[in-house]
């Protein structure tokens, strides 16, 4: 499992791996929002948490098809499926590699981009905490979507259509944590819901994703 993780990390960071593209996309999105809604602090501040979460979500979406597509094309996914490691484990490791290479840089960059959107300072810790807890669920659900659409020729748009509704609960609780933290409310309840969704997703989705992969590799 560790060997597979290291292999995936290496593939992602070497040339052509697309490492860092998600962060660049995130930056562009945050830079475009003020052009859309105007540069006023009063206009930007209330929507900043939502924009940051949406940006992370969309950046995640763009990188999802890479989770399985390349391995499917060159046949290494077939080898992984016949390897002694259960396919559920492969899915979990692939999602973890996606999280480390795509989502973790986004979490690190988010406070910086929050400055662009006039996110108040007292909201920054809650932004980091909510993204840290919420993004693993996004990677795992994305791996499920990628597993379902891996055999399709034009899977990209379908992938977004399938995955985005699954992100709704995570998005709701994630932004609620920041909103409550920012207003001095009690963010524990949405935080616990968010953590519950993430742990549930990590525990159960690998089975669904592995089942979808087996169907596609048949």
């Amino acid at each position, binding site marked *: 499992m560790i060997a597979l993780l290291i292999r995936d990390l290496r593939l992602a960071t070497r040339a052509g791996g697309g490492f860092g593209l998600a962060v660049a996309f995130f930056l562009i999105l945050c830079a475009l929002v003020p052009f859309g809604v105007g540069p006023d602090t009063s206009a930007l501040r209330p929507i900043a948490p939502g924009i940051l979460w949406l940006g992370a979500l969309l950046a995640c979406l763009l990188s999802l098809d890479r989770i399985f597509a390349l391995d499917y094309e060159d046949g290494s996914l077939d080898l992984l499926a016949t390897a002694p490691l259960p396919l559920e484990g492969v899915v979990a490791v692939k999602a973890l590699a996606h999280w480390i290479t795509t989502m973790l840089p986004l979490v690190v960059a988010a406070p910086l981009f929050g400055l662009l959107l006039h996110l108040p300072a007292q909201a920054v810790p809650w932004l980091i905490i909510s993204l840290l807890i919420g993004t693993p669920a996004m990677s795992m659900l994305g791996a*499920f979507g990628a597993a*379902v*659409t891996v*055999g*399709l020729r*034009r*899977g990209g748009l*379908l992938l977004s*259509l*399938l995955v*985005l*509704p*699954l992100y*709704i*609960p995570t998005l*709701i*609780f994630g932004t*609620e944590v920041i909103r409550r933290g920012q207003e001095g409310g009690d963010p524990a309840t*949405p935080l616990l*819901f968010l953590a519950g*969704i993430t742990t549930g997703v990590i525990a159960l*989705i690998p089975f*669904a994703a592995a*089942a*979808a992969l087996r*169907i*596609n590799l*048949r």
Partner: protein
Amino acid sequence: MSIWEYANPVKFMRSSGAALPWIVGAAVICTVGGVAWGFLTPEDYRQGSTVKIVFLHVPAAMMAINIWVMMLVASLIWLIRRHHVSALAAKAAAPIGAVMTLIALATGAIWGQPMWGTWWEWDPRLTSFLILLLFYIGYIALWSAVEDADSAADLTGVLCLVGSVFALLSRYAVLFWNQGLHQGASLSVAPGERMSAIYRYPLYLSMLGFFLLFLALLLIRTRTEIRRRRLAALQAKEARA
């Protein structure tokens, strides 16, 4: 005699073919009767004539949810027992469910405009129906995107299972997110919260009509799918010969 006998396509085609004219007839009578009876009810003292849209809105909303549950059961039967009729029934039900969701959203908007003064509000019920519509669209799109019929049935079955969990989760997440404008349950057993009888009975008839309408459409569409499957098999045989 068990329900599993109908998993045999031949048996299913014969029984459903015999029952279909009766179901269609009953569906037309109940739907038209329910809506027409509803139209003739006196006007509500506060809502005026707009209250009559309830006879389309509530049955459509009820069916929108129940059709998804039926798809979930059919997908489970397919994944566990591999009965093709079940998978085809789930496929046939999805567009009907999507249309029911659309009817509920559209009639709700038309009703909401004079009553709440807005076509759309991010109310938990309205939002969860929009999310339900997204799930229906994704499910239908996946069916049409996968070429191999059995793989498509398997993948949509898995999607239906995961989607059901998340549809339910979203339902309660949006409750957390925004408090609503929408009234509570339309049909309650508690006396005093109920609608008055002159509205209730046409509504029951209309709900029965919508259920029968769904059953009729489902049988027609499932029969079409089975025939399409047979046609493909015949064509494949001819191409080999």
